[in-house]
């Protein structure tokens, strides 16, 4: 009978082909994409953008180990990114100055390992007290710790380097894989390697008993106690790993920028990683990856087009919180499943929603851009497609009102539709 059960059980568990498709293939695709990019001859700009994206992907994924998987809302995750990064920068300096001993033979390429150790160590020390609480107290503690460490950053000059920060030079020590680490393309390969390693590592973590328990603790910490586990302990261990992977990202960043300043541990990057993970979607493993890609792009490129890019970011975030709590990934996967199940119904409703969202957003863009130019005092004018729009022109206001009005109407219609389907 037991054998029969095992067979039935196996029938239920995904087949190895499915496993491969769901678990290994995406990682391979990631690795291939990452490996192929340089053959398109990206510009230097592109290279540096990609490197930052890679760093942010690992950082956001590590954050989601806490928020999405572990149910721990942290406002201070950058602390571990920063401390890991600082550890790596200090190691980089040690490599630079080493004459004999360990550091002479340590390649810069493996600095993220130091970062991981630094972040994990910081997680182990800080997590010890903070993981004893969950929920809002945990969030508040993380906020306090972040502020504390950030303030300490200006106090312990030899560790954090004060206002100047600590900088190093990545072109020292033994070379690996023929990468001198000087040019941005070398750095790209370095980042690419660690992005894949980090992503695979974090993914693998979700498949371990501890990873599963972390989800169980998120869902129901009380019950976890009654299957023999200490939820505080689970949280603490997860916290250490999340700190470690954040530190890994910090180590990547240390090599990429060759500098770390106390701002790196402050609330601002902690907030940014929260946005990346949440906007991407904390319920899907791929969510933070999507979030990191989108937000890094916005940060470096949208900021060139619009001074108000942070406002767009804020609006996006609020939109997600209010109407799409599963984030961009949720929207994406939802559409994908919808398309397979009920293409027609989805498409009509979907298009209403998309059209509504786009119209509303266009209206907002006109409003914001016109306002930005009106306010900054450099005398510029918003000229989409050659149309001059200023705060004084009625055309601008007509556009704003019509676009936003139409957009919201459509959105409402789409939502009413979906609610009625859901309720029936």
């Amino acid at each position, binding site marked *: 009978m037991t054998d029969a059960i095992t067979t039935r059980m196996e029938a239920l568990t995904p087949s190895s082909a499915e496993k491969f498709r769901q678990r290994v293939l995406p990682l391979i695709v990631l690795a291939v994409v990452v490996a192929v990019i340089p053959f398109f001859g990206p*510009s230097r700009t592109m290279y540096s953008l990609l490197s930052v994206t890679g760093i942010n992907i690992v950082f956001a994924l590590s954050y989601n180990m806490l928020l999405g998987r572990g149910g721990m809302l942290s406002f201070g995750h950058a602390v571990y990114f920063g401390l890991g990064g600082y550890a790596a920068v200090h190691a980089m300096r040690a490599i630079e100055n080493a004459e004999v001993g360990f550091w002479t033979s340590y390649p810069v390429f493996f600095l993220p390992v130091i970062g991981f150790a630094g972040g994990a160590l910081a997680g182990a020390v800080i997590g010890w007290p903070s993981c004893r609480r969950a929920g809002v107290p945990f969030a508040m503690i993380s906020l306090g710790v972040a502020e504390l460490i950030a303030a300490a950053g200006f106090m312990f000059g030899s560790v954090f380097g004060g*206002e*100047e920060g600590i900088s190093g030079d990545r072109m020292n020590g033994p070379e690996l894989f023929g990468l001198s680490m000087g040019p941005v393309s070398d750095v790209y390969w370095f980042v690419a390697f660690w992005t894949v390693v980090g992503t695979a590592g974090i993914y693998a973590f979700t498949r371990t008993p501890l990873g599963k328990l972390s989800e169980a603790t998120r869902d129901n910490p009380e019950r976890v106690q009654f299957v023999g586990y200490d939820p505080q302990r689970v949280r603490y261990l997860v916290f250490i790993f999340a700190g470690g992977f954040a530190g890994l990202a910090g180590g990547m960043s240390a090599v990429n920028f060759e500098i770390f300043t106390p701002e790196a541990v402050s609330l601002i990057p902690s907030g940014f990683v929260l946005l990346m993970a949440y906007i991407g979607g904390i319920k899907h493993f791929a969510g933070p990856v999507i979030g990191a890609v989108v937000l890094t792009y916005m940060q470096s490129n949208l900021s060139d087009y619009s001074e108000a890019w942070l406002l767009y970011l804020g609006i996006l975030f609020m939109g997600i919180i209010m109407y799409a709590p599963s984030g961009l990934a949720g929207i994406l996967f939802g559409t994908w499943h919808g398309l397979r199940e009920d293409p027609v119904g989805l498409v009509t409703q979907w298009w209403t929603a998309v059209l509504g969202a786009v119209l509303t957003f266009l209206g907002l863009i006109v409003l914001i851009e016109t306002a930005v130019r009106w306010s900054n005092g450099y005398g510029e004018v918003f000229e989409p497609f050659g149309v001059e729009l200023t705060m004084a022109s009625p055309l601008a206001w007509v556009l704003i009102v019509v676009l936003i009005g139409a957009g919201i109407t459509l959105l409402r219609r789409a939502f009413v539709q979906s609610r009625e389907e859901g309720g029936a």
Partner: protein
Amino acid sequence: QDAIKIAYIDPLSGPMGPTGDQGLKEFMFAAEHVNANGGINGAMVEVTGFDNKVNPKESLVQFQKALDQGYRFIAQGNGSSVASALIDAVEKHNERNPGEEVLFLNYAAVDPVFTNDRCSFWHFRFDADADMKMDAITDWLAAQDDIKKAYIIGQDYSFGQAVGAAAERFITEKRPDIEIVGNELHPLAKVKDFTPYVQKIISSDADVIITGNWGSDMVLLVKAAIDAGWDKPILTYYGGSVGAATAMGEAAVGKVKAIVEGHTNLPMSDEHAAYIDAFEEKYSSNDYYYQRVHNAVFMLDAAAEQAGSNDPVDIAFALSGMEFEGPYGTVTMREDNHQALQPMFLATFTKDVERGVEDLPLGWTSGPDERIEAEATRAETTCQMERPER
């Protein structure tokens, strides 16, 4: 011909925003002026602002962005912390990317180390360093017999520390009898209310406040001091920071002094007066302030024309050791450490001046004996500059 693109990397938002914004406007204005006169070797000068939020790491991000967009000149000044990172980054970049060298025009970051131990061939400083300025300030102080106690307050980073150290050194050298009753550092750009600091100063019985504060830290410090009824001298580096005059008001007249490389009430040529007027007309909410920005852009122009090339390396060689006739005297870019030598002035906040600031009848003046000649500011340097091969 390709444009000469200068990336201006300074704070354009946040508490230090006004300071950075002022510099950007002056750079743009100087560039326009050069362009109106045919540009640099026929090439137009473009200045673009990159907001670094006074953060070294962010500055490097912006620097990278500027590089990607083909900028070969960067200008920066607000914060020696940032300058330090940028000097480093420029050196690394120039070493790693021969043929794409970048020059760093420093118009205000005055930590002395940049032209001493950490000097770089690619870095040119158009402002006097913290030691040179303190030397001039303490010359005045040395002559004030009624001053017995001095209080030094500054921002907690390399520049503020350098100012504090220089003040202690020069005071003990020139007036050993003056007691230094306080040498305090506060966080950069974070203090919102200086009252506790000011009351500490008042209770220390100090006769003079010496400060290198700039930006919001300058404005808020003097505001708190004036509010608390401080009526003794305040010796500053940056009393001319945007907003300070308004904060000080009449109460500060005669009390606040600043060491500068020029101000708008000095005797000057009509041509320069016209330049200043044009600036103040174009940017009606700002006053002309950074003489050294003008010098930097004009010297860049002169150097390029002298070199007959717009290549940064050629310009650097021409700039190194160059002499330039500025509106208030000759400016020399020392060849040994790339520190500019120029006449300095100890200016006093005064009433009923010809050119007021911030729409007030108040402004800066200096007497004839408050001019310090360029040569007098020369100091020993420990710089051992590595020059590229030619």
